[in-house]
């Protein structure tokens, strides 16, 4: 049962093979038994899950069920869930019970989804390895000595370890696609503005975007059907009709034009990852696609630009965590300044503090033009690079990450090496484009991902391309040993 996709589980619920309560209980039992190996959950919401499952079963019996009714899944602990701790994996919010639901959470509730719990992540989504979590690192189910990637590492680990059939994630510089690649699952970062950010605790507002993390492209389409849409509470969400993302899955790929950016296949790319990626491209050629080399010349600038813009926004977004109204407050502050300094000094972890300092520095008087404005100019160049290429091809493909999962602790002392892991994913966030990662093989027993990039609001196209690939290959059905 745990290897079933959302689509298969939906079928099972519909035909009465099992009830949502049975399904949910099975997952809860499995989490209880297995998750200490992976640390993929921060909070398991057993009571609430069973109540939602019961309501779902009633809806199914009454014939009022929708496509998602009764399906279990997990939320990244960055989405505010009413009455449930929403920690962002930070000591700062360890005591924070959200009094309201994020729009994405509301949408899943309305669709009849069953939330199993809240998944582990890098603190405030800042990281590529999940090691910055206050609750300890989540582990990669393919090798528990390795990181699952980040920041949505808990969601990726939970899906890969079959502790949830699907999960939500958020992606600011690769935080859905990179852990999806490292854990051998499917992840989709939608176009900026496609999914509401209301109630999704902000890291970098102009880059953050929520999306699905699933076993298959078809499941991602089912999740996105629930998640996407305009939200009047989020001024940056786009008021544009939401298509049925499952509708185009089966379109043939005849004549699909694929661009391979030469900058994605440079020397520092792991040679085996390069091979797996090329092999995947061959599959597409077999499916009738044509391939050409393209260029995204400003790719190398995306990391420095990102590490100005994201920390700048973060330094401001995280100012609200001041120990005054909610969250962590230091013991016995002697005055206001002491309250601020110690609450923030003790409540935030090292990586979060590093980024707040980088961001505050980049925005400070005298440096603003040299850093922030310059980074915004680079951002426009990157957007223009993509626009040019996407006027010539339908999709861009390449590796999701330059390396497979690395060992826990391997890169923690070298933040820049860690930042470089996001070299292929970050530029999409800067441009606001949608991108997917789908499993395309393994290297030394660790999965590797193929990234598929499309034009703005081309999620249907991406899902179609990914689904056709998954019909032709079985990388996505492979599980870690022992699972």
């Amino acid at each position: 049962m745990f290897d079933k996709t959302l689509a298969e589980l939906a079928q099972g619920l519909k035909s009465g093979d099992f009830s949502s309560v049975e399904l949910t209980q099975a997952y809860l039992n499995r989490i209880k038994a297995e998750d200490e190996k992976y640390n993929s959950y921060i909070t398991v919401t057993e009571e609430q899950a069973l109540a939602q499952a019961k309501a779902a079963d009633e809806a199914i019996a009454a014939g009022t069920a929708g496509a998602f009714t009764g399906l279990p899944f997990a939320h990244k602990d960055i989405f505010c869930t009413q009455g449930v701790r929403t920690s962002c994996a930070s000591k700062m919010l360890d005591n924070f019970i959200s009094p309201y639901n994020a729009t994405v959470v509301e949408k899943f509730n309305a669709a009849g989804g069953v939330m199993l719990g809240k998944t582990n992540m890098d603190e405030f989504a800042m990281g590529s390895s999940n090691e910055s979590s206050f609750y300890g690192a989540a582990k990669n189910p393919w090798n528990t000595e390795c990181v699952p990637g980040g920041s949505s590492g808990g969601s990726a680990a939970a899906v890969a370890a079959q502790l949830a059939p699907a999960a939500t994630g958020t992606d600011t510089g690769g935080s859905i696609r990179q852990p999806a690649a490292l854990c051998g699952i499917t992840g989709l970062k939608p176009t900026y503005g496609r999914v509401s950010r209301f109630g999704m605790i902000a890291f970098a507002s102009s880059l953050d975007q929520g999306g699905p993390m699933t076993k298959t492209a078809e499941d991602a389409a089912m999740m996105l059907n629930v998640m996407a849409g305009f939200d009047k509470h989020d001024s940056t969400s786009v008021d544009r009709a939401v298509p049925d993302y499952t509708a185009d899955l089966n379109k043939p790929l005849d004549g699909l034009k694929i661009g391979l950016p030469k900058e994605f296949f440079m020397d520092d790319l792991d040679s085996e990852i390069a091979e797996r990626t090329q092999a995947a491209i061959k599959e597409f050629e077999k499916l009738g696609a044509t391939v050409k080399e393209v260029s995204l010349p400003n790719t190398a600038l995306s990391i420095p630009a990102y590490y100005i813009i994201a920390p700048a926004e973060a330094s401001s977004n995280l100012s609200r965590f001041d120990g005054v109204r909610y969250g962590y407050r230091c013991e016995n502050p002697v005055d206001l300044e002491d309250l601020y300094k110690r609450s923030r000094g003790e409540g935030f972890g090292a990586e979060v503090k590093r980024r707040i300092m980088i961001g505050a520095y980049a925005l400070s008087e005298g440096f603003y033009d040299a850093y922030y404005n310059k980074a915004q100019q680079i951002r426009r160049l990157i957007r223009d690079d993509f626009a040019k290429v996407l006027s010539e091809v339908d999709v861009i493909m390449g590796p999701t990450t330059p390396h497979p999962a690395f060992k826990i602790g391997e890169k923690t002392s070298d933040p820049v090496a860690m930042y470089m892991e996001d070299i292929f994913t970050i530029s999409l966030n800067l441009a606001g484009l949608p991108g997917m990662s789908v499993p395309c093989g393994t290297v030394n027993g660790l999965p590797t991902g193929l990234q598929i990039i499309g034009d703005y609001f081309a999620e249907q196209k991406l899902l179609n391309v990914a689904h056709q690939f998954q019909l032709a290959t079985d990388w996505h059905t492979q599980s870690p040993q022992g699972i």
Partner: protein
Amino acid sequence: MEWEAVIGLEIHAQLATKSKIFSGASTAFGAEPNTQACAVDLALPGTLPVFNEEALRMAVKFGLAVDAEIGRKSVFDRKNYFYPDLPKGYQTSQLFHPIVGVGHIDITLEDGSEKRIGVTRAHLEEDAGKSIHDEFPGMSGIDLNRAGTPLLEIVSEPDMRSAEEAVAYVRKIHSIVTSLGICDGNMAEGSFRCDCNVSVRLKGEEEFGTRTETKNINSFRFIEKAIIGEIERQIDLLEDGGRVVQETRLYDADKDETRSMRSKEEANDYRYFPCPDLLPIEIDDSYIDAVRDSLPELPDARKARFIEEYKLSDYDAMVLSGDRNLADYFETVAKAANDAKLAANWVMGELSKLLNQNDTDIKDSPVSAEQLGGLLERIKDNTISGKIAKQVFEVMWNEGGTADEIIEAKGLKQVTDSGAIEKIVDDVIANSGPQVEQYINAEPDKRGKMIGFFMGQVMKASQGKANPGQVQGVLKKKLDALV
């Protein structure tokens, strides 16, 4: 040495929107602490601002009223600093691209001369909450009801050279924003407050002296006193060989002096950058034209019309047009009484006297314009004399009721019955032997004046109710018959 003051003002006008600038919470004044602060105002994790377009319309109205450039694309920026009543850790404001650009207004000085004062800019921003330091021993209370209330910050050029000019400018801006209906102008509640930038220099110098900024002054009188005091302080300082320190000062109304709050050296670096949660506001000509079409009559135009249409003096027209509510009140009274001069005299006389005595705003006048109009009608049609009308007016103010009800209930109706008047006149003449004697013996051209004594006696005998015109006629006839 002759000194010259240079004054520039920043006025914060609270916009009269029903809800806050970035949330749906009410802006009403005086509610229990923190009952008008929603999740957005509390800056709960994950919350996002949504711009209240009513604030935009109001800001554009102001811009058009001061003949300013309207920003076709205005952008919200974040001003980052920590303070407990600033829940997000930043204030959302407009630094780089304000909604209102360069404009101007003309002020009238006491000697009747006019002066043009430049408006540098006006921008939208959110107000902070309030810290309360004296209610909880050892702790501070925070009330976030005001947090997020929309403000229009109106910045002047340093064009004013005296406290008189500064107050005339503030009054004019006050009259414009209240006439537009975009601010209630209530200075005591903080809806309209002023920061005064003051420096002095030797007359004839080109360079400005070092300025100080005196913050949050909330009455016209205090503005005047604070500026006069600050000019004197700076001149004394310079004449004693000292120098002015650039700093923020507070005006203490009890002591009538300004004192230092913080020096520029301690100032924050606000790390301004564009708010990524809000889209730039883009408006086009048709939007601006529609707002222009909706503009009410402005104070200058209304003053001109009062002079033209009602034949009021320049001074009366200026006073009555200066406040929209007062102007509306006056016009209602004038129409009801069909006598603008009489209406102007009453509004600026009896009514203003009682309003001032009771520290009551025209909006809250216990006597409505309709009531006063009804009263003046009774003067016009000789039902009561002007003197009796003042009695009726006091009853109206204290007890309510229409003029007719009060006249009836108190038996104040003017006596116009000629028989009754003749009877009183006869009695008075009979009891005033010496004065009648004098009258008879006086030169004919002196007699007119002497009639005043008899008038007084008759009015007294009639308790003021006899129609003065009639009495005059009867007296003259009867006295002259005795000659």
